[in-house]
């Protein structure tokens, strides 16, 4: 029986805001694609600041007596700002504000986000948060040096660098970030749930959208904890309340504080902080699934399980937070509970890794640059995940706590791994965003230098950590238990880190040069099946889909369908056009 096409789309057209001037089109834009690019540029710009700060720290660690411009206070400030910038202002903003805004409407077949005005405000509040953060570099005393965890009491006490204006601006900036994010998050969740086009059922959504969707829900549940902690810490600092501050003698003087609980702050912070790892991780998992599938010309292995794993990881991530606090003097049973949940979360995570690998198994792998980065991600993620199993166990964590091993672990798992995905995603979607290809050779050099460089930096740090070298130390001085070879290793790491840092210039050069004079991309250059590549124009115009919204007939992974005229079948291709029998198997009914 021939396939009978369903009646025309019943999805209601929404009234779209049409910008009339340059300012409303490109500056105060309500178009999610423009907002996405604004988010991305801001996030990457502040990320470069974070990168420079890390190089400064490395210079100090590698060559302790050579840089008189860096004093211990600077060092703490660099650590703090590097951590905060990278985790929140770069990764969270880029994955959700950048990729989320660009991809959600396009991939679910919507003309825009459901609340475009709120979406616009979201970006401007985020920018304000970034500016406040940057302003803290210029106040008296400089930015806060409390460490990115901002633990009281030291975070707000005199003696910690930046305890004047720095810490206040930091907390205010975070509060604004959360307000801005909430406005964006509202859009992402509601657009995914209500704004899909006909045929785009939840289980036909690309995994990218699933990852961003679940991560946004996590963020909407986790950021409140940071908000609560941040507001109360701010009051402790400004109004001298004692929410978190115990009775304390500082510099020989009894302070007004008394009775507060610093551990309470730690719980709040990590109740946000652990899900935050997955707020960054889940979009990366989703995007990498799509990259692998497209560039290996094969449907993703175990699609449903991939969705379940995302949901499961999201859920479990809320009951593991205290594994960051094993050394805070907690009840051992408490630690036992959190160690158990932490190890359980490895199950859905491992499942995802197996499915990525099984997707590659006997696939038609094309070693494009996005694929290289995707493979780089899998290897790095497994690496960082395994050291996570070490640290998740209380007994192993206690001696390793606060050593360079921890630094190496989280940089692998939530620094390098998501960054691999970000680079892969930029190489993958750049043709869609700009209509031009990035330079292939520069891209390959960029990948190999970054990939090998990242391992040369972070593998030695594991070893240094095993030797007992603590993190957050300005210099070691005369320390008996640390062999002198550690210093040589540190110098090596620094040299590589600076080189990798500079290698990113290649990437930016490629980005800016290709934007204006790159090779014009053919339509859908990677031959991807998902909806964002099927727009009438490339890059997609305002309203995304021309006169009529697309109607979706299949999932986003129809690659290598037997009998079809091409090796991929776009999600919105009418079954009659597919050719052969295979593509829309519904034609068999």
């Amino acid at each position, binding site marked *: 029986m021939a396939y009978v096409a369903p009646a025309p789309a019943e999805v209601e057209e929404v009234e779209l805001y049409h910008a009339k001037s340059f300012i409303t089109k490109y500056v105060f834009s309500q178009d999610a694609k423009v907002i996405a690019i604004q988010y991305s540029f801001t996030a990457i710009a502040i990320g470069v600041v974070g990168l420079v700060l890390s190089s400064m720290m490395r210079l100090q660690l590698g060559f302790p007596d050579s840089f008189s411009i860096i004093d211990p206070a600077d060092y703490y400030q660099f650590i703090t700002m590097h951590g905060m910038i990278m985790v929140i202002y770069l990764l969270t903003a880029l994955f959700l504000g950048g990729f989320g805004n660009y991809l959600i409407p396009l991939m679910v077949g919507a003309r825009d986000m459901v609340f475009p005005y709120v979406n616009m405000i979201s970006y401007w509040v985020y920018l304000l948060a970034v500016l406040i953060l940057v302003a803290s570099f210029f106040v008296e005393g400089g930015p806060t040096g409390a460490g990115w965890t901002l633990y009281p009491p030291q975070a707000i006490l005199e003696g910690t660098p930046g305890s004047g204006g720095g810490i206040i601006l930091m907390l205010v900036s975070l509060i604004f970030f959360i307000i801005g994010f909430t406005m964006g998050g509202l859009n992402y969740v509601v657009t995914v749930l209500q704004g899909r086009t006909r045929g785009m059922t939840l289980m036909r959504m690309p995994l990218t959208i699933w990852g961003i969707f679940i991560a946004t829900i996590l963020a909407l549940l986790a950021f409140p904890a940071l908000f609560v902690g941040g507001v109360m810490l701010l009051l402790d600092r400004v109004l001298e309340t*004692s929410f978190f501050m115990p009775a304390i003698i500082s510099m020989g003087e009894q302070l007004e504080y008394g009775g507060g609980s610093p551990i309470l702050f730690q719980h709040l912070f990590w109740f946000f902080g652990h899900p935050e790892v997955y707020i960054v991780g889940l979009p990366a998992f989703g995007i990498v699934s799509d990259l692998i599938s497209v560039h290996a010309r094969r449907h993703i292995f175990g699609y449903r399980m991939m969705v379940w794993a995302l949901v499961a990881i999201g859920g479990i991530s809320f009951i593991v937070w205290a594994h960051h606090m094993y050394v805070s003097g907690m009840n051992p049973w408490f630690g036992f509970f959190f160690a158990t949940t932490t190890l359980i979360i490895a199950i859905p995570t491992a499942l995802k890794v197996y499915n990525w690998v099984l997707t590659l198994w006997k696939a038609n792998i094309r070693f494009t640059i996005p694929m290289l980065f995707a493979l780089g991600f899998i290897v790095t993620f497994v690496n960082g995940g395994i050291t996570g199993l070490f640290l998740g166990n209380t007994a192993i964590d206690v001696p390793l706590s606060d050593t360079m091993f921890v630094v190496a672990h989280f940089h692998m798992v939530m620094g390098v791994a998501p960054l691999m995905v970000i680079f892969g995603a930029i190489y993958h979607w750049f043709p869609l965003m700009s209509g031009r290809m990035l330079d292939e050779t520069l891209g390959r050099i960029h990948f190999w230098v970054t990939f090998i460089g990242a391992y040369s930096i972070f593998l030695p740090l594991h070893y240094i950590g095993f030797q007992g070298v603590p993190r957050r130390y300005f210099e070691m001085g005369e320390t008996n238990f640390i062999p002198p070879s550690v210093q040589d290793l540190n110098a090596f790491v620094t040299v590589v880190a600076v080189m990798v840092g500079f290698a990113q210039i290649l990437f930016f050069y490629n980005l800016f040069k290709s934007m204006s004079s790159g090779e014009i991309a053919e339509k859908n250059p990677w031959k991807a099946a998902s909806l964002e590549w099927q727009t009438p124009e490339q890059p997609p115009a305002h309203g995304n889909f021309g006169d009529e919204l697309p109607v979706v007939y299949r999932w986003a992974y129809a690659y290598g369908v037997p009998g079809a005229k091409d090796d991929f079948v776009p999600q919105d291709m009418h079954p009659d056009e597919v050719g052969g029998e295979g593509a829309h198997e519904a034609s068999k*009914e």
Partner: protein
Amino acid sequence: MGLFSQLAEKPWTPEQAAIDDRHKGVEFSLTTPQFGLRVFLGFVTVIFTLFVVVYVERMVFADWKPMPEPWLLWVNTAILVISSIGLQWAWVSADKGDADGVKKGLYLGGVLAFAFLTGQLLVWQQLVVLGFYASSNPASAFFYLFTALHAVHLLGGLVAWGRTAIKVKSGMDMAKVRGSVELCAVYWHFLLVIWIVIFSLLLFT
């Protein structure tokens, strides 16, 4: 369709495809703004819940001294209840297409919300006169924090209320303002519940 059957779908099978082609999948039977507001209220609920958890946690420490309970708070609570009733009245009237009722209900609700905020400021003043500063005890610090946060949310609501009131005043079609009136009413009821929780916390601890 439940969450689990949803997640158990097999999008690649012909049988499922035949079903999926005909609709856009699960959605909530709410308009987009209604749904957006629910998500936002969820977010605010998490914030206040965490504050309450921290409050209870902080209470057990030795330096906790309970606050006095100014009688004015009872008056404010009553005002907020009537304010909420006013918006409910506006909502019901909007459903009936009764423009006059919408106007009266909306104005009553808004004016009383301002009265509530003024009342809260008076309570603050009384407490300060009695010597309860934010820094003097965690209980008073929490009180100022809770009331301030609640007031900020109410102020945000008043912005939305103002926009709705302008629409109503300009004589816009009831069918068009109905949605905005409903959102205001739902938000007001939500803030009333939050206030009652905060107030009970103060009374019983």
